[in-house]
Structures are given as structure tokens and as C-alpha cells.
């Protein structure tokens, strides 16, 4: 198969019917594997990892906090990509996928904020601080809210898809700018770095080396969250496709009558 025809084969899935049948087939796999990974990761992390000498048992929160924070950002990136696809190729499924993903993103953002806030209470002595990472998450939350509110407010589905896609695009640029601005405005309390330096973060390893004890269950949780996200988005996109079809069918019935 040539590259071009491969790409065309990919676009096939933008056909609503094909999308529905395909996802129907793969969904059970995603549901089950995501449940397995999340349960294994959380149980491993919760029951079978030691406390951190400095943070005590609170380090266990990391298994929820980091995966949800990652997914909150990735979800927006996915919405940006599907919005672009809609604007360029006008595949209905991709617009509906963006719509279906947004509430998932909101929940992920909320989980990251909630676990962070609960964690912050013992660690920093406050529920909330205007730290750049935290602040930019709050802004991301606002973008999600506005995006969903715009979808809800517009009745014509294609108009809504167009407008929300442009909002997603413009919003991404501004979210990025905000991230920079916030960094400039306040150097905060939150651990920087990447997942690869959990050890440094948890304080077990000031040399900033990987602390495998915490890292492997965390990795399992992250994989679980990714799988769950895919399952949810596939499932919810199917729902949106059907809702869209109901609307069209009813409208058509009206034209007949």
C-alpha cells in the first residue's frame, strides 16, 4: 500500500457509519484494558509502594494527579487536531469527536486541580497558590468551559462546529501565551520537570534520578488513563454521531410532513 492510499484509508474512518462499526468492535478492548491498567496501577501504587520520607503517604496522590494532568493537556491537543481536520477537510466525525472530548477534558482538569489542591494543603500549607502550573491549569479549565458553553449555545451543528473550531484554534494560541505570561509573572512552588524525574519531585532522590518504586506504578496508571480517554472519546463520539443523526432525521421528517 502506498503512503497516499494509506492516508486515504485513514480518512475512511471519517465516514460516520464506518466509524461507528469500527469503534463498536474495538471499544470492549479499550474499556477492559483501561480498567485493568488503572486498577493494577492504583492498587500497586496505593498498597505496594512505600511512603516517601518527606511527603509521607501523600505521595500516593501522584498516581491520580499526574495522569489526569497529562490527559487534561493531551485532550486539548487532540481537540485542536480534530478541529483543524474539520476546518480543512470538513469531516463531521472529527468535529463531533472534539465535542465529545471536551467534557472528558473538563473532568481530567478537575481531577488534577482537586488532587493538587488536596495535596497542597499538607505540603504547602495552602489549598491554592498562584503558582504558574496551577494557574495555567485554571486558565485551561476556563477555556474548556467556554468551549463547551459555545457548543451548547449554538443550535445549528455545522455552525457550532465551525465556531468552536476557530475558538479552539485561537484559544490554543492564547493558552500558550498565558502559560508563558504566567511563568513570567510568578515563579511558583510547584515541582517543575517531567515525569522522568519523579524521584526528584518526591524528594527521595535529590540527585534527580528516576525512582523506580514510584515510577512504574505511575507509568501503568498513565497508560490506563490514556486507554480510558480513548475509550471514552470513541464511545462519546458515537453518541454524538447518533444525536446528530436523530436531529437530522427529525428535521427530515418535518420536511416530509
Amino acid at each position, binding site marked *: 500500500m502506498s503512503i497516499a492510499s494509506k492516508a486515504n484509508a485513514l480518512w475512511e474512518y471519517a465516514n460516520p457509519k464506518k466509524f461507528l462499526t469500527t469503534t463498536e468492535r474495538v471499544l470492549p478492548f479499550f474499556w477492559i484494558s483501561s480498567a485493568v491498567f488503572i486498577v493494577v496501577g492504583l492498587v500497586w501504587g496505593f498498597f505496594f509502594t512505600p511512603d516517601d520520607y518527606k511527603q509521607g503517604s501523600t505521595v500516593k496522590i501522584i498516581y491520580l494527579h499526574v495522569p489526569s494532568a497529562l490527559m487534561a493537556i493531551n485532550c486539548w491537543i487532540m481537540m485542536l487536531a480534530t478541529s483543524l481536520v474539520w476546518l480543512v477537510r470538513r469531516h463531521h466525525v472529527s468535529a463531533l469527536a472534539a465535542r465529545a472530548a471536551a467534557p472528558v477534558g473538563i473532568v481530567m482538569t478537575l481531577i488534577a486541580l482537586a488532587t493538587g489542591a488536596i495535596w497542597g494543603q499538607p505540603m504547602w500549607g495552602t489549598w491554592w497558590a498562584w503558582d504558574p502550573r496551577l494557574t495555567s491549569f485554571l486558565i485551561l479549565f476556563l477555556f474548556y468551559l467556554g468551549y463547551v458553553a459555545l457548543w451548547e449555545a449554538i443550535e445549528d451543528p455545522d455552525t457550532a462546529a465551525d465556531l468552536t473550531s476557530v475558538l479552539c484554534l485561537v484559544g490554543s494560541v492564547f493558552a500558550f501565551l498565558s502559560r508563558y505570561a504566567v511563568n513570567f509573572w510568578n515563579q511558583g512552588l510547584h515541582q517543575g520537570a517531567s515525569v522522568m524525574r519523579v524521584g526528584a519531585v518526591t524528594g527521595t532522590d535529590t540527585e534527580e534520578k528516576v525512582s523506580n518504586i514510584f515510577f512504574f506504578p505511575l507509568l501503568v496508571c498513565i497508560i490506563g488513563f490514556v486507554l480510558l480517554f480513548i475509550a471514552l472519546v470513541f464511545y462519546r463520539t458515537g453518541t454524538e454521531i447518533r444525536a446528530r443523526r436523530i436531529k437530522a432525521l427529525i428535521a*427530515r421528517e418535518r420536511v416530509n410532513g
Partner: protein
Amino acid sequence: MTLTVTNLAITRGGVPVLEGINFALEPGKALILRGPNGIGKTTLLRTLAGLQPPLAGVIDGAEDTVAYAGHSDGLKPTLTVVENLRFWASVFGAADIQSALDAYGLNELADRQAGNLSAGQKRRLGLSRLLVTGRPIWMLDEPTVSLDRNAVAMFADAVRGHLGQGGSALIATHIDLGLDGEVLDVGPYKAKPKPIDDFDGGFL
């Protein structure tokens, strides 16, 4: 400037309303659109004016040649009659508004604020805007709403004058305007439903 419409299909709110429309509107001619309430006359005019994309078909000759007048007049209540008209004149690059004022008997209202006009007076002002656009194709959606007999006659005169200068007009109306022109009843073009197992087309 001949407006040619070939096999046009239009949608409103995502629902196909009319399809298979074909006609040509030649300079000097008027075409009267008729059809029951809700058939899609307004939608057709908006599509032809370029305000919404067609679902299928080709519209030829409508680029930058159309002056559209819809259900609302686009008047600013705090501007006077002359100010309202002069604004549109300068947007369309016309210099003279006097003949437009004359055509609709607006001279004595010239310095009144548009918000203080009666319904029919507003409508007259709205219609006079067409005369300053300099556009050859007029697309009018129920232009004579609220007009008294006298004003309907002014309107008919204005349209005749426009046709006489080689312009053309497409007018959706339910009443008799005293204009002679071909009549297009859009009733027969009502969109037929797609088969329901057409899943992808089912989005439209």
C-alpha cells in the same frame, strides 16, 4: 449581467428546503417568487445574495452585483433619514442620494431620526437604499410590507425605472405589486427527503 441558477439546492438550519431550481434572470426583467409560507423564499434569496452557501448547484453572475433587502431594513434609529441613506451611499461609492429621497417621497422626512418614523416610513427609507447601491440585481424579500397603496406605487415605479436602466429584480412577495414580470412558483421545488438508510447523507 444575467443571473443564471443551475440545479440549485439550498438548506436552512441544516435541512434541505428547495432543490433543482433553474432559472435565468436577464437584464431588464423582473422575476416574482411565490410560494406558501415556509417554503424557502427567504432562504433562496439569502443564498443567491451570497449570505449562505448553497448545498448544491451553481449560481452564476451574482458576485458583487446583488443588492439585497431582507425582512429588516438595517436602519439606525438614532441617525436621521439623510444620514442613514448617505452612509449606504458612501459604502457603495455613490454620490447622489437626492434622487433616492425623491423616488420615495422622503424629502419632508429628511431630518427626522429613523427611530421616530412609522412602520411604512421606515420601509420606504429601507427601499430607497437600493437606489444608492448602484447594483444591477435587486433581491427583495417582501418589500412592500407595511406600505400603503401610494407607497406601493412608488415602489413599483422605482422597480420599473431600475429595469428600464437594464437592471433586474428578484422579488419574493405574497401580494400583487402591479409589476409585470415572470412568476416563479417555488412550491414544486420543495426538497424531497433522502432515503433514511443513507446514513452519511443523513447528516444533512
